[in-house]
């Protein structure tokens, strides 16, 4: 059997680091394990004592766990859906980022499913979904679609790993432990890279890519139906299905940007994941941001226009009531993300000659704006200066906050234009936090404003926050362990892309024919 070859550069960057672990890696793993350990302890306490240790009580039966469930399942759309869409449409630039995207999907689904386990209290009750599940229940549809998505995503992640596992098997460093040799031999499934195998594998991947897209769309649509098929105020909405799917893809792309940047920095993948991936995926990201704003407006506008006596308190609590503190930061974060992604392209390099277009000026303006906003929103027990009219001082503060915020946004533009990667990560962080807040704003205000019981409050307990922290830690831990076992970039796909790029460079594309040339001579019109 001939050993499969890999270029020295690819081996040094993508294979050899899999067998080296520095002190930083072990420190991170230890820290994550400690956080997970704390979460496990809190979960055991919850199982022992019951759901009374959480803040969930009548009428808010769903809280942080449900928010996290929808959030993590949304993040899972990063991968398989985006990767599948790009693969089906033949987007060549996808090659270096597909594996990271697919890994996010698999791990976010695992962590997302844990949230249900936390939420139901007694874990054995999860089996009731299967023992007593009826096909008319959206909870059952959810189990149906998440099962299909998880199995499909796992397969879709594994298939492109087969040739890479064979490449690692045939190019193992000398210090590779025995169990790793066995692992890659098993996962490679006897792969030899024959034309028949390549043809079959690529056919199978293409079939999976096509099948996974509707399954992915169904997953978040059905999660929205868990809410929308009830008559709870604010949830009984036809727009929830597409709204959730868009939000999921939006947060998924943001998570992908953060993950691929971390992998790029930590594993020195700058020559693989280039600005091309950031720019092209950024276009999709901007589109999703615009569509998300459209759906958010559509969803809230119809509630505002209807002014139904059950729905109106929910919306009012978000606009100026107890949940304004989570609603408006969500809007602000999404606006900042949109600004950071779109407006740097309007900035000119010549702006940098003006001294105020510096990050430090932008930062000081942003801090000033934030401080003024704090003064505006923190309730004042007594006026600072009795001689100033409170209305005038409030209006002055609003104007100053806006001016300093705008200054911060404008003066940072040249820096953002020069730092595409950093800018994209800033926007992504805003979107991830904003989307978590969006899930909160959908679940909690409705739960605390039901039809029959008066307004109530919900603030998560230490148990719930601990399990949230542990879930995040588990997600990161799964991610880093996976990329200690497998290359973060699909080696064979990247090499194929490189060969195709080189071939394309040799192609000379002719100039278009002038309009002065007779139409009959236009090769482009198919008349040659």
């Amino acid at each position, binding site marked *: 059997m001939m050993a499969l070859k890999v270029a020295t550069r690819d081996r040094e960057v993508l294979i050899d680091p899999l067998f080296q672990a520095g002190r930083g890696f072990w420190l991170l793993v230890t820290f994550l394990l400690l956080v997970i350990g704390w979460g496990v302890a809190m979960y055991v306490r919850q199982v022992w004592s019951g759901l009374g240790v959480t803040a969930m009580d009548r009428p808010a039966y769903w809280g942080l766990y449900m928010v996290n469930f929808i959030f993590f399942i949304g993040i899972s759309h990063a991968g398989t859906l985006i990767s599948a869409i790009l693969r089906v449409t033949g987007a060549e630039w996808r090659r270096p980022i597909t594996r990271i995207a697919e890994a996010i999907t698999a791990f976010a689904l695992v962590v997302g499913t844990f949230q249900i386990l936390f939420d139901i209290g007694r874990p054995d009750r999860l089996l009731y979904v299967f*023992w007593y599940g009826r096909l008319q229940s959206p909870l059952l549809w959810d189990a149906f679609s998440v099962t299909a998505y998880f199995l499909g995503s796992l397969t879709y992640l594994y298939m492109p790993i087969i040739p890479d596992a064979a490449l690692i098997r045939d190019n193992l460093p000398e210090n590779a432990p025995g169990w790793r040799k066995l692992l890659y031999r098993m996962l490679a499934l006897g792969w030899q890279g024959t034309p028949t195998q390549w043809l079959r594998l690529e056919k199978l991947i293409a079939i999976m890519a096509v099948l996974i897209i509707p399954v992915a769309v169904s997953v978040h649509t059905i999660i929205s139906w868990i809410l929308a098929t009830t008559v709870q105020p604010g949830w009984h909405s036809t727009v929830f299905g597409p709204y959730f799917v868009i939000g999921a893809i939006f947060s998924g792309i943001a998570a992908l940007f953060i993950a691929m940047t971390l992998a790029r920095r930590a594993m020195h993948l700058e020559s693989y994941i280039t600005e091309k991936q950031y720019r092209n995926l950024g276009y999709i990201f901007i589109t999703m941001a615009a569509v998300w704003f459209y759906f958010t407006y559509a969803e809230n506008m119809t509630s505002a226009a209807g002014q139904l006596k059950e729905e109106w308190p929910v919306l009012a609590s978000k606009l100026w009531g107890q949940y304004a503190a989570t609603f408006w930061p969500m809007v602000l974060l999404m606006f900042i993300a949109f600004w950071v992604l779109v407006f740097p392209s309007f900035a000119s390099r010549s702006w940098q000659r003006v001294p105020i277009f510096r990050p430090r000026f932008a930062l000081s303006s942003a801090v000033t704006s934030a401080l003024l906003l704090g003064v505006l929103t923190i309730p004042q027990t007594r006026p600072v200066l009795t001689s100033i009219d409170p209305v005038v001082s409030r209006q002055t503060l609003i104007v100053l906050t806006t001016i300093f915020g705008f200054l911060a946004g404008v003066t940072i533009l040249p820096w953002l234009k020069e730092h595409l990667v950093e800018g994209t990560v800033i926007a992504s962080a805003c979107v991830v936090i904003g989307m978590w807040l969006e899930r909160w704003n959908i679940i909690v205000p409705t739960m605390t404003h039901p039809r029959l019981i008066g307004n109530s409050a919900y603030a998560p307990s230490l148990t719930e926050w601990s399990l949230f922290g542990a879930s995040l830690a588990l997600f990161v831990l799964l991610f880093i362990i996976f990329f200690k076992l497998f290359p973060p970039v699909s080696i064979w796909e990247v090499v194929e892309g490189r060969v195709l790029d080189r071939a394309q460079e040799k192609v000379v594309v002719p100039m278009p024919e002038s309009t002065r040339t007779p139409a009959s001579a236009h090769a482009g019109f198919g008349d040659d």
Partner: protein
Amino acid sequence: MNFPMDKPIFQFLYWFVNTAGNGGIAVGVLALLIVVFVFLGLRWVAAGSQSDEESYSYPTPALHEKH
């Protein structure tokens, strides 16, 4: 107009969607189908190594056109 529950098709559908346990069976059947599909697909790919052909570390469209 009342729903035509006297028709067997609607009686069957009513039983199908409302009977406890049918949902679990449906999820189980789906999971089984996916696992079988994946298993057969992977076996099909692995069986491709038995042919007496050249080995390639990566494919290109030309490889597929040639074979």
